[in-house]
């Protein structure tokens, strides 16, 4: 029943962090494979966002962990190293967020006071529907991507203002799209077997392959001395 165990990392989130994107979800995942069809999965990550308002000079910031549990189903019936996955996740996070802005000026009395809202508490849960594809690169290494449609199921946050970004969910809208590019290390019975032909071939066995090909070619070519007409003539003489 248990066909393998995999651990993965979302390289897209790391790339977004590296290029200084407005927000980034950096996550790792662990999953088990059942009959090469069902893949229960657990994802944990850290979502962070620092967003500067262009004209307003407001700043929103948060950084908090998030979790997702769910399952993928492999639609591909052939065991050929490729997996077409459809699945669902349930995500949840509890976080603090900060908001700073220019000093507020009273419209009646003209008094000015600074405003800095720190440690506002938020709590969100959401459902994700996923579609994705992954393939075996070489050996136990697999690369895949998926696209996710996210719908909030529960959200609570401070009355002072809605958070601009929710860790793990993304921008705080009624629905959201997201995605990951996963580099996964698959360990188990089907990890090596199910790739009949890895996408990048056998990177560490190039020389061996060449040698094997050469010996095959030698075996297939007929012995020239025996099959030429000249040799037959000699035998007849």
């Amino acid at each position, binding site marked *: 029943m248990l066909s393998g165990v995999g651990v993965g990392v979302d390289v*897209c989130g790391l790339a977004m962090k590296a290029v200084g*994107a*407005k927000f980034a979800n950096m996550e790792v995942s662990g999953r088990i494979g059942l009959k090469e069809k069902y893949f229960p999965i657990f994802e944990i990550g850290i979502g962070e966002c620092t*967003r*500067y*308002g*262009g*004209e*307003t000079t*407001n*700043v*929103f910031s948060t950084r908090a962990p998030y979790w997702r549990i769910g399952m993928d189903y492999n639609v591909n019936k052939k065991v050929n190293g490729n997996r077409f996955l459809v699945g669902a996740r349930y995500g949840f996070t509890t976080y603090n967020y900060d*908001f700073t*802005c220019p000093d*507020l000026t*009273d*419209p*009646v*009395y*003209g*008094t000015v*006071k600074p*405003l800095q*809202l720190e440690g506002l508490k938020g709590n969100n849960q959401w459902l994700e529907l996923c579609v994705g*594809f992954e*393939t075996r690169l070489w050996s136990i290494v697999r690369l895949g*991507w*998926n*696209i996710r449609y996210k719908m909030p199921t529960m959200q609570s946050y401070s*009355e*002072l*203002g*809605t958070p*601009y970004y929710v860790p793990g969910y993304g921008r705080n809208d009624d629905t959201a*799209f*997201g*995605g990951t*590019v996963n580099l996964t290390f698959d360990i188990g019975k089907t990890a090596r077997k199910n790739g009949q032909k890895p*996408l990048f071939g056998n990177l560490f066995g190039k020389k061996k392959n060449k040698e094997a090909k050469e010996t095959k070619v030698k075996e297939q070519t007929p012995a020239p001395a025996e099959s030429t007409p000249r040799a037959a003539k000699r035998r007849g003489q």
Partner: protein
Amino acid sequence: MKQRKAFFLACIISLLGISSCDTIDCTLNNTVVMTCNFYQGGKAVQLNDTLTVTAVGVDNPLLNRKRGTSSMALPLSFFNKVDTLLLHVSGEDYAVTDTVWIEKTSYNHFESPDCPVNMFHNITAVKSTHLFIDSISISRPDVDFYEDENLQIHFYPVAD
């Protein structure tokens, strides 16, 4: 070879999809004012006299010499618990002033880093002097972006 090309193409498309467009969704009407409508004898009425409203301690009027109006929209202070407003009504041969006290709680409201921060209010109590104001009732305590009626100011009925 085809498989490899298709895989990388799918990766690029999905990455483009992930880096989706960013939009700014600020509320178009982002002024916060308290809306007061005038009533007389239980019916909405237009005030033909001149109305001036000032806050105690402030020289600049909040509403200056307004005539023929049936309502007024006033800003509330951000940091005071009670706003004290002076309503001056003047006609050809008279001028009276009523004082209105508005108790409220104020709280910050923000929607996005791209939008300005606003102050919303919740009116908890209203009282006034009664020279020309008969009574004041709270119809909607929340003072926010919606310009719905917050206070009903009832004037004394006209003597026959």
